[in-house]
């Protein structure tokens, strides 16, 4: 490389630099096959090149520096490491939720529409509710538009896997984006990608580039350097540019999603379908009755066990009345060898949007059926089969034939169910499942037919019969919709269909599963139980024989489980919980089977264990064998190291077939036959599973080894680090979990681990306020979160709290704030505190300006380490930043210990030598007793101690005999004598109570446009009611007036004087006049007179001179002022002239 003589600063950036680097590369024969961004990469490359060429220059000179660099490098490395977590998700993951967020009018729905168009080649008219699509062979996506109010944003941040932040490029960042970022940061940071829109508004290319740069850097400071910001350059035909949408889709498809700790510990569901399933007659009698709803969605987070309570964001906590796993409405393509997706597999599912043929309205569902496209999977089509078609036809026919009123039908249906069920079940599953469905059809048929007419204009043909056949051509999902044609009122048809669907899916599964499904039906559950009881009673009846045999075969493996847990599916959490205040639901009480009360106790092996002794020790002295006997000893010889090792090894493997079946289970007689019956199966399965497990372990280890090898090559670290060990353990555990769970049958598995993540669930929830239905808006996604073990309890929580730096004011203690913790949002009254050095929590009136403080508040508990966002104002009209503070839960308590300062002030009423009686400090003798031994102090700094209640003799005598004795006088001692004018005070701490108040935000129970109103702050109330701020005179700041203290002269007693040394003795010092008169001589008098005269003259002279001088000065000043005005004027003129000419000159120059 040649260098010019002149020092030249080569370009660091821009086109010339780029050109240069390119030529350099060419020179060196490098080809950049991976086209990387040159500007970011350049420096690094240069450095490496230089290192290669001149290694000496980069060798370290200082050992200290090298050491420092090394330690820093290793520190950075350590910081990158995370404790590995066990991935407990098995099977297909649920669709990833992509939340599209941005301020209004930024192009959110358009982006979703464009993406949907890109993926599925369909135009969607409206984006309402989540839209699920299959984006690849392994991946499904669910697009959600984030609503614009802060509540919606908070909820959206909780379920988003990826957030697309849309930013209006022509305008710049808006507050919403930052608010959303902050919310996300607190609730676990999902992946974030920025998208700049409205870039076509820039005409100037340079300006566009600058803006992009600026926005990008601002975005980076908010997230991290290098965060992806996507540019959508403009619109073509009202859509984003195809190529750019394609690129965005590619970015989405390669996105990796990390587990977030809160979400991996809690199940949650983003509702994509929502139905009201309240019995119609109940609604018709009382429009405002509590409703039953069903909510559908993919289960995410972790497995959901039976009996989990859920929180519906914006509504409240509910017990789940029924959970059913449904077949996936939008399944992944089945193992295709092909590259990419075929068009048939590009499914999408969006029941809330008016997608294709379904449109959900407030009170009806409109169906468009175009036969030129069929949009659900072929597999479902096949599943549908002829049976379903018949069912559908039956259904519609029965709809037409009804003549009875709703009530009658309902009553009949129940009676029928009770009497017929047991007989009918024998006919087969098909019949069983149809039964309730037909009833459902008949129930609301009148309304249905009315509705049909309403829908006329949207449908091509009025004939309902034809229509139904049409709908059958489309899959059963749609068929479901037909049945709920009425809107959300119609529920049973959906049910029947679904249970039927389930049956079709799982006809070969054992009865247990089916029973599960049935028992999830709303009112049927209790009756079903009774039916089960019946089953048990008449188990020998011939009707039942076949199914029983089947059952025993299928259930052989869980027989011991049955013994322990009992046969019936009692749900202790749901059924035996009782609200102390609220009366339990009538239905449950009413339909309680006869034997249920004592069933639980009788179900076990030991029937009457109600009051047995509570001891873990189980020693059966009666059954002790004689171990002195040689044979008995030989029987357990192999259990000792002195015995046969190989036999023992086999015992562990479980391969020992001959087995000594001599154990006569004295407690469980049932064991024996089970075991003998089980034996063959057990022998077969056991080694298999063991082998399988070992294989998996090996696999896991192998994987890990590979990883390690790669890593060790990189890090040149040969020894297994701690983190690797943890990783290995986690992976092993994962494999073990998979292996152990795989050899269970479905029913047991469901019981053991609950519903798995990724399944499409239907949750039924009872007694939801009717407002939820009334004000339901599909544009506001509903979030259902599972509640952990302790999280439904309420208590005090302590959080590390920091006011957001963009919030303008500090926060006041006990002013209500709205917090979002876990799934919940609620309003609460926090007390701010700070921890003193000695561990005391001292109350703060206001949050510190820039520091963390503690906040203590009452509410439903959240586990430590949960993030909190606090908001004060929910309204959309607020211009400023709405996030008030962020916090993290430190611990929770059932009692709060926050104190504030208390100063008790008193004054002496009688002073002895160093003892004084203090009054006005305490109000009663009891109080004095409480403070005995407390240290006190006077203002002047004399310390003391409270001793005891002042006795009556000690100066506390009533003024007149018979007057009242003053209470609360304390005898105190001080280190010195105090004065009567001293003020004595006692510094103490007093407990501050945290108000037991929380108010859940019920934003889903009101019109979405309204702002939720909760408790107002004191300031707001004052403003509203025009109440002045209370003004305490004592609190005013006044000038302190300290009158000069006048002390009397010190009088030394005569007796003392005499003994004092001379120096200290008071002396008679005559300073001035000694009292004698001076009589001057006449000469002297004259002289004195003369002098006085002269002085007088001089004095006068001086006076006159001064006056003259002053006059002169005055004159001069006036003159000067005049002159000054003139000069100023002149100068201004001059300046003006000069500038004018300059300006002219410049303009001229510029023109040239």
């Amino acid at each position, binding site marked *: 490389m040649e260098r010019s003589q002149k020092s030249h600063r080569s370009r660091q950036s821009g086109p010339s630099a780029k050109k240069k680097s390119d030529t350099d590369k060419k020179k060196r024969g490098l080809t950049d096959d991976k086209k990387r961004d040159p500007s970011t990469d350049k420096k690094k490359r240069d450095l490496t090149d230089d290192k290669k060429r001149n290694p000496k220059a980069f060798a370290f000179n200082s050992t200290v520096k090298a050491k420092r660099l090394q330690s820093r490098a290793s520190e950075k490395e350590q910081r990158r490491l995370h404790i590995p977590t066990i991935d407990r998700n098995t099977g297909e993951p649920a669709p990833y939720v992509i939340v599209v967020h941005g301020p209004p009018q930024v192009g959110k729905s358009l982006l979703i529409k464009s993406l949907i168009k890109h993926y599925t080649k369909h135009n969607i008219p409206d984006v309402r509710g989540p839209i699920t699509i299959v984006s690849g062979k392994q991946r499904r996506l669910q697009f959600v538009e984030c609503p614009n109010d802060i509540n919606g944003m908070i909820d959206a941040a909780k379920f988003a896997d990826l957030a697309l932040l849309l930013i209006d490029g022509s305008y710049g960042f808006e507050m919403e984006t930052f608010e959303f970022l902050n919310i996300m940061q607190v609730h676990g940071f999902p992946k974030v990608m920025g998208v700049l829109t409205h870039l076509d508004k820039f005409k100037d290319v340079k300006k566009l580039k600058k803006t992009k740069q600026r926005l990008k850097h601002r975005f980076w400071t908010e997230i991290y350097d290098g965060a992806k910001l996507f540019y959508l350059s403009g619109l073509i035909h009202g859509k984003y540019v195809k190529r750019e949408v394609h690129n965005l889709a590619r970015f989405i498809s390669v996105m990796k999603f990390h587990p977030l700790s809160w979400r991996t510990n809690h199940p949650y569901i983003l509702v994509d379908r929502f139905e009201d399933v309240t019995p119609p007659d109940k609604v018709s009698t009382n429009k405002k009755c509590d409703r039953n709803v069903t909510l559908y969605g993919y289960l995410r987070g972790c497995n959901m*066990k*039976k009996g*989990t309570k859920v929180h519906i964001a914006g509504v409240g906590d509910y017990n789940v009345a029924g959970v059913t796993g449904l077949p996936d409405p939008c399944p992944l393509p089945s193992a295709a060898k092909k590259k990419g997706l075929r068009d048939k597999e590009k499914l999408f599912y969006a029941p809330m949007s008016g997608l294709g043929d379904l449109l959900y309205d407030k009170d009806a569902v409109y169906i468009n059926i175009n036969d030129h496209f069929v949009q659900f999977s072929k597999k479902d089509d096949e599943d549908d089969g002829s049976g379903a078609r018949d069912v559908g036809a039956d259904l519609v026919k029965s709809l037409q034939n009804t003549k009875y009123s709703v009530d009658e039908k309902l009553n009949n249906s129940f009676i029928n169910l009770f009497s017929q069920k047991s007989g009918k079940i024998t006919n087969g599953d098909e019949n069983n499942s149809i039964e309730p469905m037909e009833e459902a059809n008949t129930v609301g048929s009148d309304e249905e037919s009315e509705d049909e007419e309403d829908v006329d204009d949207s449908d091509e043909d009025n004939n309902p019969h034809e229509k139904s056949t049409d709908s059958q051509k489309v899959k059963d999902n749609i068929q479901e919709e037909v049945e709920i044609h009425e809107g959300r009122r119609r529920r049973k048809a959906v049910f029947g269909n679904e249970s039927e669907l389930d049956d079709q899916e799982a006809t070969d599964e054992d009865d247990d599963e089916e029973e599960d499904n049935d028992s999830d039906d709303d009112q049927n559950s209790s009756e079903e139980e009774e039916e089960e009881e019946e089953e048990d009673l008449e188990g020998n009846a011939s009707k039942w024989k076949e199914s029983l045999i089947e059952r025993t075969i299928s259930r052989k*493996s869980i027989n011991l*489980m049955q013994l*322990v*847990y009992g046969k019936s599916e009692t749900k*202790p*959490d749901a059924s035996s919980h*009782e609200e*102390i205040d609220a009366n339990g639901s009538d239905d449950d009480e009413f339909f309680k089977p006869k034997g249920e009360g004592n069933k639980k106790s009788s179900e*076990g*092996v030991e029937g009457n*264990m109600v*009051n047995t002794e*509570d*001891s873990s*020790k*189980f020693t059966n002295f009666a*059954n*002790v*064998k004689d*171990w*002195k006997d040689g044979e008995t000893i030989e029987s*357990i*010889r192999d259990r*000792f*190291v*002195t015995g046969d090792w190989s036999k*023992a090894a086999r*015992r562990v493997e479980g*391969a*020992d077939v001959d*087995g000594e*079946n001599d154990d006569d289970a004295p*407690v*469980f007689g049932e064991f024996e036959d089970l*075991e003998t019956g*089980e034996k063959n199966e*057990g022998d077969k399965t*056991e080694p298999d599973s063991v082998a399988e497990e070992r294989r998996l372990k090996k696999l896991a280890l192998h994987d890990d080894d590979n990883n390690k090898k790669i890593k060790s090559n990189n890090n040149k670290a040969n020894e297994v680090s701690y983190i690797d060990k943890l990783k290995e353990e986690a992976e092993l*555990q994962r494999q*073990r*979990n998979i292996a*152990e*769970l795989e050899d269970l049958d479905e029913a*047991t598995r469901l019981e*053991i681990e609950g519903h798995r993540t990724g399944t499409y669930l239907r949750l039924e929830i009872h007694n939801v306020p009717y407002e939820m239905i009334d004000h339901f808006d599909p544009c506001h996604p509903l979030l259902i979160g599972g509640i*952990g*073990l302790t999280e439904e309890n*309420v208590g005090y929580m302590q959080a590390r709290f920091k006011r957001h730096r963009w919030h303008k004011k500090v926060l006041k203690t006990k002013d209500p704030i709205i917090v979002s913790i876990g799934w919940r949002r609620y309003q609460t009254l926090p007390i701010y505190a700070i921890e003193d050095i000695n561990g005391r929590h001292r109350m703060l009136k206001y949050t510190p300006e820039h520091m963390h403080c503690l906040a203590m508040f009452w509410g439903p*508990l959240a586990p*430590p*380490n949960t993030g909190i966002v606090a908001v004060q104002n929910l309204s959309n009209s607020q211009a400023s930043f709405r996030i008030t503070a962020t916090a993290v839960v*430190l*611990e*929770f*308590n*059932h*009692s709060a210990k926050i104190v504030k300062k208390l100063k008790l002030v008193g004054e002496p009423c009688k002073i002895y030598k160093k003892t004084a009686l203090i009054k006005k400090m305490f109000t009663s003798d009891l109080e004095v007793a409480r403070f005995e031994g407390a240290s006190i102090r006077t203002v002047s700094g004399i310390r003391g101690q409270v001793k005891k209640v002042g006795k009556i003799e000690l100066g506390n005598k009533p003024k007149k005999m018979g007057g009242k004795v003053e209470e609360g006088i304390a005898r105190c001692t001080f280190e010195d004598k105090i004065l009567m004018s001293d003020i004595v005070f006692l510094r103490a701490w007093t407990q501050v109570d945290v108000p037991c108040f929380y108010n859940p935000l019920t934003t889903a129970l009101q019109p979405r446009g309204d702002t939720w109103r909760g408790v107002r702050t004191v300031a707001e109330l004052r403003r509203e009611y025009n109440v002045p701020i209370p003004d305490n005179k004592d609190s005013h700041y006044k000038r302190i007036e300290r009158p000069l203290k006048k002390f009397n002269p010190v009088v030394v007693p005569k007796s003392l004087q005499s003994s004092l040394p001379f120096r200290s003795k008071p002396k008679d010092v005559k300073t001035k006049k000694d009292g004698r008169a001076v009589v001057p001589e006449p000469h002297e008098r004259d002289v004195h007179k003369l002098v006085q005269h002269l002085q007088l003259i001089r004095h006068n002279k001086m006076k006159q001179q001064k006056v003259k001088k002053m006059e002169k000065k005055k004159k001069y000043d006036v003159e000067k002022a005049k002159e000054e005005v003139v000069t100023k004027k002149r100068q201004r003129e001059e300046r003006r002239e000069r500038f004018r000419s300059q300006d002219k000159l410049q303009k001229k120059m510029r023109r040239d």
Partner: protein
Amino acid sequence: MGKVSYMKLKGSQNLRQRLLLSTLASTPILIEDIRADATWPGLLPHEVSFLRLLETISDDCHVEINETGTKLKYKPGIVMGGGYLEHDCGLSRSIGYFLEPLIVLGLFGKKPLSIKLKGITNDPKDPSVDTFRSTTLPLLKRFGVPSEGLELKIESRGVAPKGGGEVTLSVPIVHNSLKAVTWTDEGMVKRIRGISFSTRVSVQFENTMIHAARGIFNRLLPDVHIFTDHKAGAQAGNSPGYGISLVAETTSGCFISVDTTNSYARGDNDDNEMDVDEKKELMPPEEVGEQIASLLLGEIEQGGVIDSSHQGLLFLLCALCPQDVSKIRVGKLVPYGIETLRNIRDFLGVKFVIKPDPTTGTVMLKCIGCGLTNLSRKLS
């Protein structure tokens, strides 16, 4: 807000476990019909004492008992733990009764627990403190409980009827959660250890017991050591008695233990009974030794990674694990274990897959833990 939903239960059985699980799952419970038909209705002294113990170690727990003691309302608080606590366990049950739930509770506390328990240390009804030291504490370590700070110190021994024993239990807290175990290899017994004690009786009793026990083991295993722990003076408590606790350790690190104690029965209720008891002779030490050795062999014969009296604890710990699969092998299920399984199902919603292994006569259990984490711990 004042609404509290109580879980309704009946009967006095498993009170300890119910209270324990209720505290862990923070579910308020309401128990009715506690010995409603018995001659002495209501809660017994040791049960009340246990409730008091819960009150000492936890914060803001509410206990309401009706007048007859047949109805109990319990609203759990947060386990605070802490040091220098003291509790008098009374004389109706031994300390083992209190220790069993306490070690589990202590794990999920805010601070490490250290508590001094006074009462009867050894008792035939409950596991003795020696067994706790030898078997129960190692069992906890399997589940990832840190071993430092896990300790049971026997200050002095006391047997029924007058007690006078004193132990100090210290339990560390788990920082996040327990660790799931796969523990199916029972191994072979490689050594037998034991400890015998005697209070206010001659050392000779111990020697006789040990001799008798060894007589049985000698035909199976040479490695048998039984230590003697003769207490005298203040450390010997207030009543005479003697007992022995044996542990068999296997090659895979399982501990199988049995214990027994021989002392005069309590007869606090009636003076007449007291006299009758006084007349009754205690079982001679040779027989005690032989019996206990036979029991241990019986336990070993049954198989499983743990002896029958620890089944409940083992199940409970498995259920408290994170949401991973735990797999364990036990001998025959004992009634207490079964009751534990049921209680776990009711409170934590965890069900076990129970499969008999017919070739060995053992039972394999599998479960997915409830994912309990130590929520009361303070974030530092």
